[in-house]
Each structure stands twice: as structure tokens, then as C-alpha cells.
């Protein structure tokens, strides 16, 4: 049998350097090569179909290299439940995005219609108040998780070298989340949200020099009016979610690149004994 031609590797990935998936021995055998040529039966072609598609995509994206590097990278020994808070915050953000999309299908950012559209969501839309409630309380859950995640990072000294930049990105994410809370609070347009936002914008107006300009920018003019609501809506729906998404990407890239920190009381001599077991 002639030796198989070497598979093309246009992106020149050195697969030998990538971490191996943690598979039990029974699954570690190499998958059978895909049958190709003129004499393959339909069954053989179908059996190899999945592999072919994955190989086709991988040949053009080198995605498997990225995925193996990301998913099978090691996390230091001692990684505990405290390390799940960041991903939990991100999950709360995803929940906010999904429930927010469903609310946006019914919401009308018009001062005369906004309140009625939310009344319609609460009273008539199937599961409307449930999804609205998930969005409202999801904001609280996300904020709490974010603060606890930050406290964990602080106590563990995880903001120190080489992860300084990731701390900065995280603080910007905290600010952006607060902006989401502030802009989203106005949208139901009931008395509570309206007057709280009037005061909130006035607070910004007290700043020296830039304060009045900032307040005018937030209101979309010197008076609180129709432009204010559409402005808050656009910021809440498009601008800040986009920024948060991009920053989460940067945050995760740095986490994967630098590795998650080890608990500060772990020292290499604690793990030296364990190394033999692996």
C-alpha cells in the first residue's frame, strides 16, 4: 500500500506543541482515516462526512489549534470555586443579552409609547413579565457577581504582575455595567425611573467645567425630553453592549494568554510531590 500523502498544513500549525485533550485511554486511539477516491460507497462517504467538514474548515482557519490551546490549557492546582465568578458574571451578561433581545422585540422607545409597550409586555405578551423580570433582576445578579469577582481578584492579589492590564479591563467592564444599569433604569418610563434619571443626570451636571455639557449630552438638550429616551435606548441597546462584548473578548484573551492565577498560598514546593503522579 502506498504511503498516504501528507495532509496540507497551509497555516503551518505545530500540533505537537498543543495541549492534549484529557481523554480516558479507551478513547485515545487515532480515528480511522476518511475513505476517499472513486470507489467509496455512499455509506463510507457519509461516515466520513463529519470529519471531512471539520477538516475542511480546520484547513482554512486552524480553529482546532486555537480550541485545543484554549480548552485543554492547564489551570493551576488549587483552582477552586472562587474562580467561577468571572464566568458566572459573563453568563449573567449573556442572559441579559438574550432577555434584552426579546424585550426589544416589543419595546417602543417613544416617550408616549414606552410605558404602554412595557405594560403590554407585562400584561399581554406570553411570559412577558417573566422575561422582563429576568432582565430586571439579572442586572442585580450581574452587578453582585461582578463585585464579588473583583473582591476575589483583590484578595488573591491576582491583579499583580503580569495581569495588571486585565485588572484595568475589568474595572472598565464594571463602569460599563454601571452605565447599563443607569441607562436601562429609564426605559420602562414610569415615575420611579423618570425622576431617578432626572436626578441622576442633574448629578452629572454639578461637575466643574464639563458637568453642564455632560448633562446636556445625556439629555440630548437642556430639557429632559423625547430625545433623552431614544438616546438612553441607543446607548443601552447598541453602544455599551458592543463595548462590553469587545472588552469581555479582551479580558478572556488575556486570561487564556497569561493563565488564571494560582491561589496565593500555593507554592511550587506544594505541587512538586504531585508532579510525579502525572
Amino acid at each position, binding site marked *: 500500500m502506498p504511503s498516504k500523502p501528507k495532509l496540507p498544513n497551509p497555516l503551518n500549525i505545530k500540533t505537537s506543541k498543543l495541549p492534549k485533550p*484529557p481523554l480516558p485511554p479507551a478513547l485515545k486511539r487515532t480515528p480511522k482515516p476518511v475513505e476517499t477516491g472513486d470507489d467509496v460507497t455512499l455509506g463510507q462517504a457519509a461516515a466520513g462526512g463529519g470529519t471531512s467538514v471539520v477538516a475542511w474548515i480546520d484547513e482554512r482557519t486552524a480553529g482546532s489549534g486555537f480550541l485545543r490551546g484554549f480548552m485543554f490549557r492547564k489551570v493551576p492546582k488549587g483552582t477552586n470555586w472562587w474562580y467561577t465568578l468571572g464566568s458566572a458574571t459573563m453568563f449573567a451578561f449573556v442572559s441579559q443579552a438574550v432577555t434584552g433581545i426579546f424585550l426589544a422585540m416589543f419595546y417602543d422607545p417613544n416617550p408616549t409609547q414606552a410605558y404602554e409597550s412595557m405594560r403590554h409586555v407585562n400584561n399581554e405578551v406570553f411570559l412577558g413579565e417573566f422575561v422582563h423580570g429576568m432582565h430586571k433582576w439579572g442586572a442585580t445578579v450581574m452587578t453582585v457577581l461582578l463585585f464579588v469577582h473583583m473582591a476575589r481578584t*483583590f484578595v488573591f492579589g491576582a491583579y499583580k504582575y503580569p495581569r495588571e492590564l486585565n485588572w484595568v479591563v475589568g474595572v472598565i467592564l464594571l463602569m460599563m455595567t454601571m452605565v447599563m*444599569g443607569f441607562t436601562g433604569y429609564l426605559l420602562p418610563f414610569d415615575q420611579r425611573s423618570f425622576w431617578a434619571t432626572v436626578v441622576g443626570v*442633574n448629578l452629572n451636571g*454639578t461637575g466643574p467645567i464639563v458637568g453642564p455639557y455632560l448633562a446636556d449630552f445625556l439629555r440630548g438638550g437642556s430639557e429632559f425630553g423625547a430625545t433623552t429616551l431614544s438616546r438612553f435606548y441607543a446607548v443601552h441597546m447598541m453602544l455599551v453592549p458592543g463595548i462590553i462584548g469587545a472588552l469581555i473578548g479582551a479580558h478572556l484573551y488575556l486570561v487564556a494568554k497569561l493563565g488564571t492565577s494560582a491561589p496565593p498560598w500555593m507554592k511550587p514546593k506544594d505541587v512538586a510531590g504531585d508532579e510525579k503522579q502525572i
Partner: protein
Amino acid sequence: MDARQKEKYLREYSAMKAAGKPFFPYAVGKDGLMACIVMIVIILMSLFLGAELGPKADPTTTSYVPRPEWYFFFLFEVLRVIKPPDLVFVATLGIPNIALGLLVLLPFYDRGPERRPERRPVAMIAMLLTIVAMTYLTLLGAFAGSPITIDEEVPAKYQYGKEVAANSGCLGCHKFGENGNDGPGPNLSEIGARLPKQAIERTLDNPTPPMPSFKSMPPEQKKALVEFLGQLR
């Protein structure tokens, strides 16, 4: 951290990482379980706490005491601690921005190599004080009611003005005798002795921030309100 300490950290970290477990499935499993818990908490909060709407926003009646979302209470309550009108900007923008700056720049001024919390007393005390201050201010905001009654007896002709004042959210930020919150706004128990009626009316139209303007209040209500405030002394 100097170059030697950095090199030592990276060397020790790579040893600890090498002794660890793969992200998938060990960390992913924990993260997934945590995500399920987060989802259940959000669903339960939605089911039990709901998302009821208040009355529709109405710029002409300020019958509602402005309340921010609870995680802004600590910012709002700083205003109650710092009262002089000239210093309002210190409370609204000064302190929050200084705190934010200190937070962002943390890794640039806390550069020591020590990571164990028990060996970083300054950092831990600073964190504890921050948490205590934020919790205290948040609770202060949570328990500051939205009172709508003024007990003070007034002559019958000022009765309507008293009701307007009680129902216009004034008590959220001002004190009238024994009623209302002491701050962020000044105590109004003797405002009539300090300001003539015209000045009170001007202040209602163009107040010192963060107080909202009462310019769009119906004239007869505003007149009654000014009459009521003007006789307080």
C-alpha cells in the same frame, strides 16, 4: 517587582500550572454548574419579585420620590454626608471619580510581589473599610423611606400647599420638622425665615443640582406650595 522577582514568579507559576488540570473538563464543569445556579437564581427572583411598573412617567407631577436602582444608593448617599451646596460637586463627581481612579490604577501603585492576603495588611484594611463604607451607604439608602406626610399643623389656608409639598417628593431629600430625610437637600423647617417667597419660587424653577426643576408644575399648585413654604419659620 523587579526583574528578578518577575522571573521568579513566572517560573513558580509555570510549575504550578504544569501540575494543574486541563481547563476542559475540570474548570468548565465548575463554571457550568455555577452558570446553572446563576440561571436558577435569576429565574426565581423573576418569579417571586416580578417586574411591576409604577405609575406612568409624568413630568408635571413630581409625586414620586426619586429612587435610583439599589446599586447606586452608595453614590447617592454620599450627598447626604457632604451637605454644603458649594461642595456638592465633591460628593457627586469628586469622590466617585477619585475612588474610580484609585481602583483603575491599583496595579500601578500596589506593585509589591506579595500576594498572600494575610501579608498585605494595608490592602486588606483598605478593602475592609471600602466594603464597610459601601455597605453602610447602601443600607442608609435602602432604609431612607419615601415619606409622604408632614405632621406639622398649619392654618387652613396653607393646607393645600402642605399636601402639594408632601406629595411632590420633597421629603425624599428635605426635612420638615420631624418628617422627611435629612439631606441631600437643606432642612426646610424654617425656610420662610431665610428666603422670601419670590426667591423660593425662583429656586423651584432653577434649583441647585441635583434637585429637579419644578418649572412644569401647574401654576396653582406651585403658588400653594410657595405660600406654604414661605410661612415656615
